[in-house]
């Protein structure tokens, strides 16, 4: 499990600071993602690599922090970010 960012074959997830190291935000992200892409690790937000490509582009995680704190990148679409 990488921390703060991870890339699948189709989806890349990035979580910026200070959100990435905030334990409360990590818990919220882990709870909100329907396909378990986030994990609440001791050092903050963990990314579960094996689930990255399951991202359903629901955008729920984007609302956990301020705009741009969490970015979902569509690698198959010229790295277009998922819009909130």
């Amino acid at each position, binding site marked *: 499990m990488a921390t703060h960012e991870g890339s699948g*074959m189709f989806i890349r997830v990035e979580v910026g600071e200070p959100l990435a190291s905030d334990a409360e935000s990590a818990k919220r992200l882990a709870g909100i993602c329907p396909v378990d892409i986030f994990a609440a690790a001791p050092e903050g937000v963990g990314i579960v690599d094996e689930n990255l*490509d*399951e991202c359903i*582009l629901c955008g729920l995680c984007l609302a956990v922090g301020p705009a741009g704190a969490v970015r979902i990148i569509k690698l*198959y*679409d010229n790295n277009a970010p998922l819009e909130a």
Partner: protein
Amino acid sequence: MRFYEYEAKAVLAKRGVPVARGGVAHSPDEAERIAREVGGEVVLKSQVLTGGRMKAGGVQFASTPEEARAHADAILRLEINGQSPRGVLVEAKSPVKKEFYAGVIYDAVAKLPVAIFSDMGGIDIEQVAEEHPEHVARAHFSTFQPFQEFRMKELVASLGVSGNELGALTRVMSKLAQTFLAHGLTLAEINPLAQLEDGSFIALDSHLDMEDEARDGQAALLAELGIGKEETRQARPPTPFEIRGAEVDASDHRGVAGRVVEFDGNLGCVIGAGGGSLTIFDALRKHGGRPANYCEIGGNPSVKKACGLTKLILSKPGVEKICVIMNVVSNTRVDIVARGVIKGVVESGYDPAEKIAIFRIPGSWEDEGFKILEKYGVDYCDRTVPMSEAARRAVEKVKAGA
């Protein structure tokens, strides 16, 4: 999925339907022990998921435990229609006075279960219905309303049954119907339902079929019967390829990506689902294609599951290309299936543009799906191209080796 007779009887007994004393044996020793415990004359029946047991010698009677042992030894070695027996059911031989038929099936036209009763049991109900229709009665019942026993009473009484027999047969019919409802069955049949010389009733033979989709909801019952997820219980024993297909489908609760049936062609099929799969399969054959497999995808399987299914199909020797075809989908996401299939192709070491003959899944999130397909150079089409035409294109590509 079909149950063995001993399993069907265990399910019915639990629901209060009387069955003969006995048990299933897996060795001659065990058969002898059960026969001794039962006492008196016993019947031994091969446990196979096929008909023709009696004719093949898979049903024998024994007067002593020693004789039961000898018969069990022979029955356990006997292959019936290519099936080796799961065991041998050893039961007390019942003194039968009269035989009836009790059944429940799902009437797909009425969209309701229908209970069927006949006072001519022991032969195929289809034959009775054809030759003696006046001896067959039917009654539909609701899957939503609370079960009403009087419907079964009306059913049984409609063939002139009265008195104590009416009460007893109503109870058996009601328990059978409730078993059907409780366990997601598509068929629940007792034939013959025997009236013994003392007037009581007993299920002499029984056949239960469970809806495949009900398996998850019936996990407790299946575990109790010792039926694992890998046991597909289809018309013939599953091939290793089919067992792996069932494992892929069981690997994740999301959607369906499995129900694999193996054929000997060169075109792998990632197709779905139910009627759609059958239509696509027929279209491939009509255009001269040789499908390597049948399968079903649908209900929004996860990327991992679609990937696993694709890898499995590509691992089959002789598969030259795969076609990915579904009807217009509303409950499955095109982009998720596209991701899974492409990932499966890449992880198998192939180029998606080469290996996927055609991708024709229009519907939910198709724009996102089409972006993925374009990125990997996969030939795809939308809903303006009929499934039959997509099948034709796939077949042509395989034939051309393109």
